[in-house]
């Protein structure tokens, strides 16, 4: 079932057309990666999906009914879709973590008790109770990311968008992020991540949409996307290392062609089987 559909969307900053004709469907509970080089318009697309920017033309269809971009429609969009922004610094607004997380909740118009309850829940969920009274501007990059994620999931949107979440994270931070994403996915939230990191996309995505030159060039499973050499070339993308390695091992006859492995340990298992 499609939870959100974007139809014939165009957008330009002044005279510079950034999104020329974007069509995209989000399925409920899926993990979608939007893959595109820097400047391909990923952040812009998200801001439009959230009603922050107004498209020049096109439609956003939420649960099969088109959203009008009036006050009511905007509220509807923002209640259903939450964005974790790329730079934590531009998202953080309050001067304690607790208040930062409650910012969106109070804007939702919830009662004070409900706000406190949900903030506590979120603090527990992300395991950041110890940060609650700290000033978010002085936290480490990884902690800040957690706080900005907490901001959004406290509001319980059905669709959570992460704009290049891995950029400011170290490997431990990325692992923490993956765990959080897995938990969210288990709650059957629909997750969208923008990135230009093909390895991350390969491991994580159910589906990948390639954004290039203002169009969604192709949507498909990671296998479909990364075996399309022409597409990868035109969209300035590389192949994931694991994918290439497995292809190589297959041509050498070391493992049999089957479904590709998404993680190193999966590939290891396959190799172990043949080496036995």
């Amino acid at each position: 079932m499609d939870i959100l559909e974007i139809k014939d969307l165009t957008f330009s900053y002044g005279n510079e057309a950034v999104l020329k004709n974007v069509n995209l469907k989000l399925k409920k509970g899926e993990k979608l990666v939007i893959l595109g080089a820097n400047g391909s318009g990923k952040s812009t697309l998200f801001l439009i999906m959230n009603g922050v920017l107004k498209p020049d033309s096109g439609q956003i269809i939420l649960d099969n009914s088109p959203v009008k971009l009036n006050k009511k429609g905007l509220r509807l969009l923002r209640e259903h879709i939450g964005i974790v922004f790329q730079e934590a610094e531009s998202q953080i607004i309050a001067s304690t973590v607790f208040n930062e997380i409650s910012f969106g909740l109070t804007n939702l118009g919830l009662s004070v008790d409900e706000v406190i309850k949900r903030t506590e829940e979120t603090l527990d969920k992300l395991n950041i109770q110890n940060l609650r009274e700290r000033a978010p501007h002085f936290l480490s990059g990884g902690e800040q990311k957690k706080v900005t994620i907490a901001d959004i999931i406290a509001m319980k949107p059905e669709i959570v968008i992460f704009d290049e979440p891995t950029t400011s994270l170290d490997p431990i931070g990325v692992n923490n992020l993956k765990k959080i994403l897995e938990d969210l996915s288990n709650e059957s939230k629909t997750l969208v991540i923008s990135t230009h990191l093909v390895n991350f996309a390969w491991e994580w995505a159910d589906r990948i949409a390639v954004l290039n030159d203002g169009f969604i060039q192709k949507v498909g499973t990671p296998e479909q996307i990364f075996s399309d050499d022409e597409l990868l070339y035109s969209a300035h993308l590389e192949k994931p290392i694991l994918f290439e390695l497995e292809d190589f091992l297959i041509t050498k006859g070391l493992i049999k062609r089957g479904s590709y492995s998404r993680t190193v340990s999966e590939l290891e298992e396959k190799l172990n089987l043949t080496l036995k």
Partner: protein
Amino acid sequence: MKYLSFYVLVIPNLILFILILLSGFLVKNKVNKQKNSLSIIDQLNHYSKLSGINTGYKLLVSLLLLIFCLLNGNIQVSILVIFITTFITVYFGKIDLSQYLKLFIIPFSFLILSCIAILLNFGTHLPTEVLASIKLWSFYIFVTDSSLLNSCTVFFRVLACISSLYFLIVNTPVDKILACLKHYHFPNVLIELMFLIYRFIFFLWEISIDMVTAAKLRFGFDSYPKTIKSIGMIGSNIFIVSFKKAQKFYNSMESRLYNGSLNFIFTESKVTPVEVGLFIFGICYFSFLYYSFQ
């Protein structure tokens, strides 16, 4: 002999003044090691042990102190206020003294300039009660008793006012203050403005520090002409960068349903009897000071 009491009063104060000045410079040398001195405020007010005290109470105390300092024209009383607020902040709030003093560097530099302006008089004739004078061609620059007294009074009065406000700011996170103002029906627009300005001071400050460092590393401050050029370029850059940043900041607020009213939630502690007692005592004490030093 006529002016003896005046000098007795002024000289210790001058020494204090010089000490503060020196400490300002000493601290200033250290500041460079730390990334920025301004955003310290935002850090300190969370660590302060007094941040838990009822915000309305602190707000009231600080405002009353401020009004008192504005009305009071006595140097010693001003110094007393500076001392008391510093003592409370440092001793009870457990704020590091040197960190606290750093906060005075910026207002200090403005203050000194204005005090010098008050201190010096210009004219073609010297009045009778001159302390010091310099003759430049046909006119004099001179200091009189009253201008010295005036500038000292202004100096300490302003410093006392600043420290009564710092008492509030250093011991209370800013959103608590705003939440409190909101509770007492302060206009929303002003609260929003105050909050955004407060946030953006830090943004601008951090951005400018980074840019200056980056320019220094590329030898942008090697000579006087280069310095002027670099500063000009940084100035215009800061404008663009802060504009972009403001846009991003606002986008993220909008996407979280922000509609022009900031609602932060705080569980305020109750005012304790001890605090009420202190408050009444303070009122009596300062009224006494005010009338006896008129």
